[in-house]
C-alpha cells in the first residue's frame, strides 16, 4: 500500500497499479480513452493528464499521464488544476475535429464514452472551421457495423483485436490524422471474439449489428444479471429487452470467468428468443381429427398431469435448461424414469470428472486461474469452437512469460506496450494435442495433430515420464518436450473437454492431471463440457440414465408417455433411427422454445421460456452454480419448464426442495433473493421512456408492471439502481453512461461487481490431500482405442462455434457465419479411400448415410475424417466412404 495525496486529501492505494487506476478505484473522475483495465496502458490518447508535484514545496507541478505513471508512496497530485483543465479541453477539441457529431443518429448515443468524457472535460465550443477528414466504411460481417468517421483513434480496437485476441484480419492503416481502423478489404471479421470491439470502442465506430436490427436507446432497455447459456463456461451477461424483444447481450464482468470479454456466439447468438417460430401457446395433436389444436394453459397442464401418471413414463431432461426445470421434471416422473439428453460416454465422462473434483484428486480451475498459469497443455479439444472464451484466456496465458520478464526489468504488467517490446516472441508454453489444426495454433509453441488413439498413447507416455515409470530414452521427442515444460512450470494447467467422444482420451487426461497435481499442487485442470448445464444435469441423473439407455428402453418397451424437455433428439439421432422409435410411443410431450424437428412430432407441445424470461441456475464446467435472473416477463403462454411440471410450487419453494433433495446443492436458495417488502431494484432505467405509449395502440391506460415475487428486481424503472447485497440490473452511473461505468461498480479495478454473487462452487478447492498412489500403469504406451476395420474410417467432430450450439443455430446472424458442412481429410487418406478427385463423398454408417463436399485438410491425421458435430452424433464414428456422383 502507498499513501498518495490527491487534491489535498490523503488516500491509501495499492502500489501495483497506475495513477489512473488508483483514481478510478477511489471513485474520482479522470477522463481517459486508450487505457483499458484488461489491456493496460499505452499512453496514446493523452486524455488522462493530471498534475504531479515533485514535493510539497512544488507549486507548479508537471503535467503527467496518469495511466503511464506507477503509483509510488508519497505522490502528490492534482486532478483539476487550471492547466490540466485547459489541456483536457484542448484534447477533446482535437479529438472532435473530425468527429461527425452525429450523436442523434448514432447508436452509441446515450451510452457513449466519448460523450461522457467530452462532458467531463468541459469542452463545449468548436473553434476549428476547416473541413473534416472522412473515411469509407467497411462491411465487417453480420455482427459488427463500421462507421469510421466517428473514430477518435484511441487504438483500443486494434490493440484488442490483434494484441489481445490474436486476430490478424484487422489493423490500423495509414498514418497521421488519416489513420484507419479496419480490414484490408471488406469482409467478415474472422476472429471469434470480434464482438468485444463494440464494447471496447469508446464511441460508435463499431456497433452491434444485431442490436441495430431492433435498436432502442440504452435508457429504454430493461436488463438483468444473467448467464450465457451457449456453452459450458457460464460467462456472465446482461441481456437487455424492450417491449418483449430481446435487443442485445452485453458483457457482465466476472473476475473468475469472462472478465471483460465474451465470444461472438455468446454475444450475437441470442436472437432465437425473438424467433418467428417461437412457441407461444400449448398445442395438442388430435389424432382422430388429424388436427393440431390450440389449448389453454389449464387444459395443457391438466393433460400433462394425466400423461405423467400413465402406466409407463420416460422423461428426458436437458443440458441446455436450468437445474430447476430438470429437477421439477425429475420430481414429476420419478428418478427412475428421468434420463439425460447426452450419450452414455459423455455422461460417464462428466461424472468421472465430477468425482475426481469431488474427492480432490483433480482441481477444477477457473479461467482466472488459467490466465495466471505459466504452461498449458491443451488436449483433444478444439476449444475455440467448443468453449470459446477459454481460447481467449489461453492466449493471455501465453503472455505471462513476457510479463514475468518485464517484471524482472521493473516494468509492470499494465505497461502493455513496454511489456510487448520486451517480450517480443517470448511465450509461456502452450502445447496443443489435437486431431487437426486449430485457430489457437499461432499462440502455441507446438501443435501435434494426431488421431485419438495416438493422442491417448502420447498422453500416457507423458504421464509415464512424469511418474518416472519409463526411461526418458525410450520416450518420444514430443512427449519429452511437453514433459520438460510441465516439469519446469510453476503453475501448469491441463485443458481438455469431453466433446471428443473418446472416453479413453479423457481418462488418460484425467490420469495425467492427477499425476501432475500430485507433483505440483498448483496444477490447474479445466475440462469443457458439451452444454451450458451438462454438469447440472449430470448431478441430477444416474450414470445409466443417459440418452443411449433411454433409446434402448424405448426400443425394447415403448413407454406410454415420453416427455422431452428442451431437447431436440434429431440433433443426436438420425431420422432412420429415431422415427420408428417415436412412432411407437402413444404420447409425446415436448416442451421447448422453438418448433424443432422433435417438437414437430409432439402430441402435446408446451411453450417454455428462454433463459432471458425465467429465473434459473446453471452449473458450469468447473461446478460453479450461477443464477440467471429473468430479464423480462414471459409473454403469451410461455412458462418455465418447472411451472409446467408443477404449477403449485413457486420458484423459491422449488429451490428449497432442490436443496433438500440434493446434498451438493444445499446452498442453492442463497443464489436467489425473493422480492422484499423494503427496497427493490429496478430492471429498467430511471429514464425509460414511452412506457405507457408502447402499447397505446391497443390500450391507452397505463399498464401495471408485471410482478416478480421471485427476485429483488422490478419490471419497471421504480426502485433502486443498486443495493449493497445485490448485483445491479444494468450499469449506469452519474457522468458514466457507457459500459465504462463498470469502474463505478467494481470493488476495485479488475475486482468483482459489488453485490454480485461469484456462484456456488460445488468442488471447493481440493480439501483432500492429493493421493500419492500411482495406479494404472497397465495401458502405458499402448494404443488404447479399438483398431478400425479395414476399409473403414473413424469420424471425428469438426466443431464450429457458429454451427454446434442448438439455439444459436436458429439465429440469422450466426447462420451467416456458419461454414458449409464438409468432410475434411488429408490428401493421402483421400487417395487411400479411392476418392481422389471427388468433389463430394457419400458417408455410409449403420445409422444412416449422407453426402458431403470433400475438403482437403492435410492437418487431419491418417485414418480419420472430420464431419460436423451433429452428423458425427447421428452417424456414429465408424463409417465407410465412397464417391458421390
Amino acid at each position, binding site marked *: 500500500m502507498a499513501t498518495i495525496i490527491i487534491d489535498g486529501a490523503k488516500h491509501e492505494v495499492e502500489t501495483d497499479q497506475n495513477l489512473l487506476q488508483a483514481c478510478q478505484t477511489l471513485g474520482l473522475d479522470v477522463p481517459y480513452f486508450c487505457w483499458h483495465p484488461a489491456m493496460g496502458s499505452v499512453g496514446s490518447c493523452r486524455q488522462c493528464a493530471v498534475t504531479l508535484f515533485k514535493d510539497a514545496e512544488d507549486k507548479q507541478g508537471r503535467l503527467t499521464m496518469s495511466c503511464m505513471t506507477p503509483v509510488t508512496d508519497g505522490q502528490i497530485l492534482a486532478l483539476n488544476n487550471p492547466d490540466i483543465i485547459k489541456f483536457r479541453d484542448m484534447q477533446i477539441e*482535437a479529438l472532435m475535429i473530425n468527429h461527425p457529431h452525429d450523436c442523434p443518429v448514432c447508436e452509441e448515443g446515450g451510452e457513449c464514452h466519448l460523450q461522457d468524457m467530452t462532458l467531463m472535460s468541459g469542452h463545449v465550443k468548436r473553434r*476549428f472551421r476547416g473541413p473534416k477528414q472522412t473515411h469509407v466504411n467497411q462491411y465487417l460481417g453480420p455482427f459488427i457495423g463500421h462507421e469510421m468517421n466517428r473514430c477518435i483513434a484511441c487504438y483500443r480496437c486494434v490493440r484488442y483485436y490483434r494484441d489481445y485476441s490474436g486476430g490478424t484480419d484487422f489493423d490500423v492503416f495509414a*498514418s497521421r490524422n488519416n489513420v484507419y481502423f479496419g480490414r484490408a478489404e471488406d469482409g467478415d471479421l474472422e476472429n471469434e471474439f470480434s464482438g468485444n470491439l463494440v464494447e471496447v470502442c469508446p464511441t460508435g465506430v463499431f456497433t452491434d449489428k444485431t442490436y441495430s436490427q431492433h435498436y432502442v436507446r440504452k435508457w429504454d432497455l430493461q436488463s438483468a444479471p444473467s448467464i450465457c447459456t451457449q456453452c459450458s463456461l457460464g460467462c456472465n451477461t446482461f441481456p437487455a429487452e424492450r417491449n418483449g424483444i430481446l435487443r442485445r447481450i452485453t458483457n457482465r464482468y466476472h473476475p473468475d470467468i469472462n472478465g471483460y470479454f465474451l465470444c461472438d456466439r455468446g454475444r450475437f447468438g441470442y436472437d432465437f428468443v425473438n424467433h418467428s417460430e417461437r412457441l407461444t401457446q400449448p398445442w395438442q395433436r388430435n389424432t382422430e381429427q388429424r388436427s393440431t389444436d390450440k389449448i389453454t394453459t389449464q387444459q395443457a397442464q391438466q393433460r400433462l398431469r394425466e400423461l405423467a401418471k400413465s402406466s409407463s413414463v420416460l422423461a428426458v431432461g436437458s443440458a441446455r435448461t436450468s437445474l430447476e426445470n430438470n429437477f421439477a421434471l425429475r420430481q414429476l416422473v420419478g428418478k427412475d424414469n428421468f434420463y439425460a439428453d447426452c450419450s452414455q460416454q459423455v455422461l460417464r465422462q462428466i461424472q468421472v470428472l465430477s468425482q475426481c473434483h469431488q474427492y480432490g484428486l483433480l482441481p477444477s480451475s477457473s479461467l482466472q486461474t488459467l490466465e495466471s498459469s505459466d504452461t498449458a497443455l491443451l488436449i483433444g479439444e478444439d476449444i475455440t469452437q467448443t468453449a470459446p472464451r477459454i481460447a481467449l484466456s489461453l492466449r493471455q496465458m501465453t503472455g505471462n512469460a513476457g510479463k514475468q520478464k518485464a517484471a524482472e526489468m521493473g516494468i509492470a504488467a499494465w505497461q502493455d506496450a513496454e511489456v510487448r517490446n520486451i517480450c517480443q516472441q517470448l511465450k509461456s508454453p502452450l502445447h496443443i494435442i489435437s486431431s487437426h489444426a486449430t485457430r489457437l495454433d499461432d499462440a502455441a509453441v507446438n501443435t501435434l495433430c494426431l488421431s485419438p488413439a495416438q493422442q491417448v498413447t502420447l498422453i500416457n507416455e507423458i504421464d509415464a515420464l512424469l511418474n518416472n515409470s519409463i526411461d526418458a530414452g525410450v520416450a518420444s521427442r514430443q512427449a519429452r518436450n511437453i514433459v520438460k515444460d510441465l516439469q519446469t512450470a510453476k503453475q501448469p494447467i491441463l485443458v481438455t473437454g469431453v466433446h471428443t467422444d473418446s472416453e479413453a482420451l479423457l481418462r488418460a487426461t484425467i490420469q495425467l492431471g492427477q499425476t501432475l497435481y500430485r507433483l505440483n499442487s498448483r496444477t490447474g485442470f479445466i475440462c469443457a463440457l458439451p452444454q451450458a448445464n451438462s454438469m447440472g444435469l449430470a448431478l441430477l441423473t444416474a450414470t445409466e440414465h443417459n440418452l443411449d439407455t433411454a433409446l434402448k428402453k424405448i426400443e425394447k418397451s415403448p413407454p406410454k408417455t415420453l416427455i422431452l424437455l428442451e431437447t431436440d433428439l434429431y440433433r443426436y439421432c438420425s431420422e432412420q433411427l429415431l422415427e420408428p422409435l417415436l412412432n411407437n410411443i402413444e404420447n409425446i410431450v415436448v416442451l421447448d422454445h422453438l418448433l424443432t424437428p422433435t417438437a414437430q412430432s409432439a402430441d402435446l407441445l408446451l411453450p417454455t421460456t428462454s433463459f432471458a424470461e425465467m429465473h434459473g441456475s446453471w452449473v458450469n464446467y468447473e461446478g460453479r452454480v450461477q443464477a440467471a435472473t429473468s430479464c423480462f416477463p414471459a409473454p403469451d403462454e410461455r412458462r418455465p419448464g418447472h411451472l409446467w411440471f408443477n404449477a403449485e410450487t413457486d420458484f423459491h419453494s422449488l429451490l428449497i426442495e432442490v436443496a433438500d433433495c440434493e446434498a451438493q446443492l444445499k446452498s442453492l436458495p442463497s443464489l436467489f433473493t425473493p422480492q422484499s417488502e423494503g427496497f427493490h431494484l429496478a430492471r429498467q432505467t430511471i429514464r425509460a421512456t414511452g412506457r405507457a405509449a408502447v402499447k397505446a395502440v391497443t390500450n391507452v391506460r397505463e399498464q401495471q408492471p408485471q410482478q416478480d415475487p421471485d427476485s429483488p428486481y422490478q419490471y419497471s424503472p421504480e426502485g433502486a439502481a443498486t443495493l449493497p447485497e445485490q448485483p445491479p440490473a444494468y450499469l449506469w452511473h452519474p457522468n458514466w453512461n457507457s459500459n465504462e461505468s463498470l469502474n463505478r461498480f467494481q470493488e476495485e479495478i479488475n475486482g468483482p461487481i459489488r453485490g454480485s454473487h461469484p456462484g456456488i462452487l460445488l468442488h471447493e478447492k481440493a480439501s483432500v490431500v492429493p493421493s500419492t498412489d500411482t495406479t494404472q500403469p497397465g495401458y502405458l504406451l499402448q494404443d488404447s482405442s479399438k483398431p478400425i476395420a479395414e476399409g473403414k474410417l473413424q469420424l471425428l467432430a469438426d466443431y464450429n462455434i457458429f454451427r454446434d450450439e442448438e439455439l444459436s443455430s436458429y439465429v440469422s446472424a450466426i447462420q451467416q457465419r456458419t461454414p458449409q458442412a464438409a468432410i475434411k481429410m488429408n490428401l493421402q487418406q483421400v487417395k487411400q479411400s479411392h476418392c481422389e478427385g471427388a468433389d463430394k463423398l457419400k458417408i455410409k454408417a449403420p445409422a444412416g448415410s449422407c453426402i458431403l463436399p470433400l475438403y482437403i485438410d492435410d492437418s487431419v491425421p491418417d485414418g480419420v475424417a472430420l464431419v460436423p458435430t451433429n452428423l458425427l452424433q447421428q452417424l456414429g464414428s465408424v463409417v465407410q466412404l465412397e464417391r458421390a456422383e
Partner: protein
Amino acid sequence: MTNAQPSLPLTQYCTSEQPLTLSAYQQQGGYSGFKTALEQTPERVLETIKDSRLRGRGGAGFPTGLKWSFVPQGDNAPSPKYLVANGDEMEPGAFKDRYLLEQAPHQLIEGMLIAAHTIGASIGYIFLRYEYHMAAKRIENALQECYQAGLLGNKIQGSELTFDLHIHTSAGRYICGEETALINALEGKRANPRAKPPYPQVAGLWGKPTIVNNIETFFCLPGIVQYGADWFQQLGRHKDSGTKLFGVSGRVKKPGLWELPMGTTIREIIEEHAGGMCDGYQLRGLIPGGGSTDFLLPEHLDTPMDYDEIGNVGSRMGTGTITVLDDQFCPVDMVHNLVAFFAQESCGWCTPCRDGLPSATYVLEQIETGHGKPEDMTFLEDIVDFVAPGNTFCALAPGAAEPLQSALKYFRDDFDQHIKDGCCPYQAVQ
C-alpha cells in the same frame, strides 16, 4: 598511413567524387582507429569516449559515452546486442549525413565497429533514408569489401569480435529518425515511437539491448579512439568537443556544408562560409538546426554553435544545418510549410500531434491565404501549449511547435498584418 592529427576528422576522406575503396581508405589511415580500439578493452574505449565528451550528433546532444554505459554488460547480459546507425535523415534543411555516407561509407563502418567492440554488439543495422539511393549503393559496396577483407563477420581480424552489419533502407517516414520508432520499423512494425522506460539500451530491437547513434556520431569515433579524448576536446572552440558538419540553406551566396569546430559562431558560418546573404536580401531570422528548432534573430548571430549556448538563446543546435529566412520571404509561409511537413509526418499515435498539428497547419494556411481571423492567433498559441513537451508521446510535435512558437514571438506583426489585410503582404510585394 599518416600519423598527422587531422583537423577535419569527419571529412578528411571526403575529397573525391567517388568514395575511397577499402584499400585506398586503409592506405590513408582508415580502420587504424578500429585497430587501436581492438587493442584496448571495451571498458578502456568507453572511458575514452566518455572523456572526449562527444555528444550525439542527431540533434538532442546526449553524451554518447553515457548512452553506451547503460548497455548491460557481463556474462548475464542479454544477447545478442544490437547497434544501429540512424541514417534516416529527414529533418527539413538537413543534408549532412547524406554527404558523409556518400563520401566515406568506410568511416561509418569503422565507427560502428568501434562501437560494436565497446558495447559488445554482434549485429548492426544501418537504417537509411529511403531516398538516399546513392548512399545505399556505396554503403553496400563498402560492406561487401569489408566482408571480403574480414572486417565484418566472425572473429574480425583474428579478434574475438563478431559483428554482422546490414543495411536497411527505410520505407520513408520522418518519425523513423526517432530511435524507438526506428526500432519498431526495423522490426517490421508501424513506425510509432515506444514508451520509455525501458530504454533501447536495455530493451530495444527484438527486446535486446540496442544502441542507436546518428551517422555523424559514428564518424567522430575513429578519430577519438586513435588520437585520444584530449585531441577531440581541443578541436572544439567553445565548451563542446570536436568538429561538426554545419550547413546553410536559404538565400545566401554560397549555400553548402562545412566541417567546422564546435562553437563556431553562427555569424562566421553564415557570413564567412556561406558568403553572407544574397545581394538585395537582409537576414530576417534563422533556424539553427533543422525544421524542428526555434527561430533565432540577427541579434543571435554571435552565439557559438554549442549545444548549451544555442539552448540558452532559446533554440536548439539540432542537426546544425541552418536555414535562413530573408526579409522578402513570408515567415508565415515558412512556418506553414514546416508545420505542414510535421503534420504530414505524424505517426498518428497520440492526439496532440495527430490532430493538433493538422489543425495548426490549416489555420496557418488560412492566415497565409488571407482568410485568417484575429482569434486564430489564440488558437495557434493554444496549439503550441497543447503539443508542449510532456503532453505528447514523443518529441515530434514539440519539435514542430518550435518554429511556430518562435515565429509567433518574433514575427507576430507579420501574422497580424496577414489577418488585417486579408492577404499575404510578401506576395503583394513580389
